[in-house]
């Protein structure tokens, strides 16, 4: 068994993949090449920060549009979580995030809010596997689950290839998968101090995603903002400080880690199977199945 490590930058963060495999070296590098190709395409299509991206261009379009089928698939995940959060988790939060200061030039200046976040279901209709119908002027942002979706795709490229085990780490969101049921030992980062962990968890074949308000945070007019916007208050969401979610799919784990800032874990049960831990006021609350050890006083 040989171990390989690959690294790249994508979706606004660093991706590291460790692969254990018996395959020929050339085959392993071929799989990584397809991962890179997928990620480059993904980035060029879905970055809100690239004005020429497919996603940015959607704000100038209306009516029925042919779109990549993966976009429809991500919208379906958004619909699921949209229902469970009473409409707070939405891909139409792009304009609000920009207005709060998280814009394509990283201005971090709070501007006038352009208006209500459009109703997702009323303004975006999924026609079929590669067509949607939208109203004009929609500013999409897939930041709440796009990375998780991309992680699932990269993971499946390895699983369909010749990997025996993989550990994918995309900026602290993790997929671990092994044919022989090994576990990975993962520290749960202290959102206030990345040199520390608040606990440790051993994970089998599962995705672990996290969200925290400590990073991607800025101040404007003496108010602190961060990257999770609450469309019901037009402000950054504030109920908890950090979340960790375990789920079979990284796309679900990623989306729910953000959603825990917007809705209760119980309400999110309709989305799928997951376990969670949340940090609030220095206290950890977690579901029974979140089998981690936390360091406590």
């Amino acid at each position, binding site marked *: 068994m040989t171990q390989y490590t690959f690294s790249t930058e994508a979706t606004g963060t660093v991706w590291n993949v460790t692969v254990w495999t018996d395959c020929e070296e050339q085959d392993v590098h071929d799989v990584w090449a397809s991962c890179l190709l997928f990620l480059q395409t993904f980035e060029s299509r879905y970055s809100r920060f690239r004005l020429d991206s497919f996603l940015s261009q959607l704000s100038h379009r209306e009516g029925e549009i042919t779109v990549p089928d993966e976009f429809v698939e991500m919208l379906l995940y958004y619909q699921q979580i949209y229902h469970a959060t009473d409409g707070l988790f939405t891909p139409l939060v792009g304009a609000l995030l920009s207005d709060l200061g998280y814009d394509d030039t990283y201005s971090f200046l709070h501007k006038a809010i352009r208006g209500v976040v459009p109703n997702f279901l009323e303004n975006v209709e999924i026609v079929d596997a590669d067509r949607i119908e939208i109203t004009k002027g929609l500013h999409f942002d897939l930041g709440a689950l796009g990375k998780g979706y991309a992680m*699932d795709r990269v*993971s499946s490229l390895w699983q369909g290839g010749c990997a025996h085990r993989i550990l994918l780490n995309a900026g602290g969101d993790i997929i671990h998968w092994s044919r022989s049921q090994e576990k990975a030992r993962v520290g749960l*980062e202290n959102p206030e101090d*990345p040199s520390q*962990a608040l606990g440790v968890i051993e994970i089998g074949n599962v995705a672990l995603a996290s969200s925290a308000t400590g990073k991607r945070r800025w101040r404007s007019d003496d108010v602190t903002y961060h990257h999770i916007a609450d469309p019901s208050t037009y402000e950054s969401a504030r109920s908890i400080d950090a979340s960790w979610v375990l789920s079979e*799919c990284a796309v679900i784990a990623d989306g729910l880690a953000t959603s825990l800032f917007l809705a209760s874990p119980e*309400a999110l049960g309709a989305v799928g199977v997951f376990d969670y831990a949340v940090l609030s006021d220095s206290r950890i609350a977690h579901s029974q199945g979140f089998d981690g050890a936390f360091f406590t006083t």
Partner: protein
Amino acid sequence: MKKSLKTSVQIFGAAGLVLLAGCGADTTVTEPIIDSAEVMEEGSQKMMEDSAVKEPVDGVQEDAAADAAMDDTVIKDEKVEEVEAMEGAVEDAAASQDITVSYTSPAGAETIAVSMVIVEGAVASISAVPSAKHDVSKKWQTAFAGGLSAAAVGKSLSEIAGLDAVGGASLTTGGFKEAVASL
């Protein structure tokens, strides 16, 4: 395929629940603790092997279970309110307080017992005893009771042996850091 996808989406959209066929990773699920567990297990067998959107797996019959699960959310909200009320009430001394919270679940009236110790107006410790009658409610209450815990403290990563990775919020990339620094 395309036609059936459209139909499915509309049905699920109306019912408030959309199910996707899988997530691109052929993994097994951790211990399911919530009611939609079986739905996702079934769905995950048909995982995405390529970029094509799969038809959502038949999930209409699961709506009732999922709705029931969602309605149980009142448990947590009500309890939080009680905790806040208590903090205001007992500010001067250490006190122990037991509360039984009643609420209405889809299966009828339920209660959960909460016990807490308050020191100087702050909740020092808290525990909950699941006391639901209905199975679904019992499951939710147990999950919640298991989640109450003490204050977390950080431990230096260098002191923790054998870590394969660290799970946390996205590492801030260069562009973001530089932009903040230049403000």
